[in-house]
């Protein structure tokens, strides 16, 4: 089940594939009065893996279809290697696409599926056979080339779809939730393999998902989308650790949001009163203003020591490697915290919630 790890493995030659960049400039799509994508700009560098992450209806799939050329934007430009491709048809762009349901041609065998792009590309028959068998080999499916999609498992179909998209050596690889139909174990395994494969082939990749963990695991950069716009884009760690809005903060992982009042503010550090108890957070705010403090459960410390916000432990959930502590402040706000499994905390205990100085942020909205 291992993808091979040498460059140019899907190509006709052994040369390292040249990587292409993609630039989206101020692109919009409207359906009637409904704006599916609104003034989106995005640059994907050569060889980069960028995820479009967001809830359903946020415009991520529409954006992917724009890049593939299935849709024309109502405004803006799309450039590949600084060439304007806005008006090019999908068959001129030839970006490999892997769909959520794989979209394997049901009347063609796995090998015919993989070879289709080469066949229409007028590659010689002998070369097609060689490249198809090499591609199938690389995704670990060398012995199922003569089977039809219906005879393959979901994971196998997924690999065939990937091989089919990569064998044409696309400038850009587009993935539309390709892992979401797989069961959890296989999905996690495929995440790692997909990442390895993408890095080894070196193809510039745009990946659409609603699964934040998947986006964080796979991407060089994550673009979080909502209502047709990109709210924030950056490396997974940055976006996760420094969300700039409440939406990003809650969509990426679990976040505790607490209302507070700013007591003191220096350059990037704020002392904020939550239910009258003083805690620190990063971010900018004016003294005296009402703000929302966001802090991730992994940074919340619940202890019996008298420090932080007092409350009561409502429940403790054992997850094997850790505990989830559900804590309710005196003011009635729920705060979740992860604690090591060895901690002895029990339901109904009075306790205090606090966090490390750099782990909480003041959010704009």
């Amino acid at each position, binding site marked *: 089940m291992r993808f091979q790890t040498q460059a140019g493995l899907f190509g006709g030659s052994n040369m390292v594939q040249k990587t292409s960049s993609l630039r989206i400039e101020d692109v919009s799509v409207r359906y009637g009065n409904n704006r599916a994508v609104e003034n989106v700009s995005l640059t994907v560098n050569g060889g980069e893996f960028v995820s479009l992450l967001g809830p359903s209806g946020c415009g991520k799939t529409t954006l992917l279809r724009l890049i593939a050329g299935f849709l024309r934007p109502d405004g803006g430009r799309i450039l590949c290697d600084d060439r304007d491709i806005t008006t090019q048809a999908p*068959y001129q762009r030839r970006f*490999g696409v892997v769909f959520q349901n794989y979209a394997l041609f*049901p009347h063609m065998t796995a090998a015919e599926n993989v070879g289709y792009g080469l066949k229409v590309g007028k590659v010689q028959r002998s070369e097609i056979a060689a490249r198809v068998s090499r591609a199938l080999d690389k995704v670990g499916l060398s012995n199922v080339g003569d089977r039809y999609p219906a005879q393959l498992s979901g994971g196998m179909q997924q690999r065939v779809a990937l091989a089919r998209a990569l064998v044409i050596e696309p400038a850009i690889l587009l993935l539309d939730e390709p892992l979401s139909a797989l069961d959890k174990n296989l999905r996690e395994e495929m995440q790692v393999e997909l990442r390895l494969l993408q890095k080894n082939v070196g193809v510039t990749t745009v990946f659409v998902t609603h699964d934040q963990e998947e986006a964080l695991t796979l991407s060089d950069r994550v673009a979080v989308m909502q209502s047709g716009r990109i709210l924030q884009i950056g490396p997974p760690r940055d976006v996760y650790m420094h969300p700039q809005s409440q939406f990003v903060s809650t969509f990426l992982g679990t976040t505790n949001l607490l209302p507070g009042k700013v007591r003191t503010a220096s350059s990037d550090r704020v002392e904020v009163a939550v239910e009258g108890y003083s805690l620190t957070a990063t971010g900018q705010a004016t003294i005296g203003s009402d703000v929302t403090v966001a802090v991730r459960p992994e940074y919340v410390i619940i202890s019996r020591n008298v420090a932080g916000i007092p409350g009561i432990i409502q429940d403790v959930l054992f997850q094997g490697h850790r505990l989830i502590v559900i804590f309710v402040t005196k003011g009635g706000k729920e705060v979740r915290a992860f604690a090591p499994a060895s901690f002895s905390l029990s339901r109904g205990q009075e306790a205090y919630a606090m966090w490390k100085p750099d782990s909480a942020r003041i959010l704009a909205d």
Partner: protein
Amino acid sequence: MTKGLGGLQTAAFGLLIALICFFILAPLLVVLMASVSPTSYLSFPPQGFTLRWFTETGKLVRYWEAFKFSIQVAFFATTLSLVIATTVGITIARTEFVGKAALQSFFLSPIIIPELALALGLLQYFSQMGAFKGMMPLVLAHAAVCAPYAIRTIQAAAMKVDRNLEDCALSLGAKPARVLFDVTIPLVRPGIVAGAIMAFVMSFDNVTLSIFLSAPGSIPLPGLLYIEAADTGLSSTLAAVSAMLVVFMGCMMLLVEKFMGLEKVAATSLHENK
């Protein structure tokens, strides 16, 4: 209690189904049985058993000629219907345009328009054009009547084809025409086969258009049978020919069943509204 009632209901339902089946099949049984009766006029119940009328029919060249003519007309009408229906069916299923609903209604209109009106209109039309000869008028008329059925089955099949498949083929470098022939049409094929069979049977079975639009000297079998029955009354020869037609159509249906399941054909086509 409920179980007993359920059993009773099942029995009543079974009886109803049996009655309906009998009602549908009874005329066929009458024809089949009458065709082996020794009397020369149509009689039921049969007065004995003979295969005389079948051997007799075999000697009558006009039936054989009419049968061959029917097959030819049905073949060409089916081919023409399929060309029209594949184009229209896939276009309607695949594209959005202003007036789509109107166009759809238009292509289905031969089903709604009474065949008699259609036949008279076409007769007038072909006569004035001076084109009233050979099998051309019949083929065109049959195609007009058969195409709507094929459009329905093909459109239904095309709706079921995942659009991602076509998009995917485009992204792999196939031009739209290529996608149509490599992906869409192969996947719509069950609908095309169903439409072809519907069209063929409709054409082969058609009496009204056949009588009105047959050029002198060449008439399809159903038309010939009707005219002979009207002229000379019901004879056992007619019953024998009809019996052979029943068997022929039965074989056709078996063929359909073998290739794709009769329910599918029935489910994807409109009901005949005669």
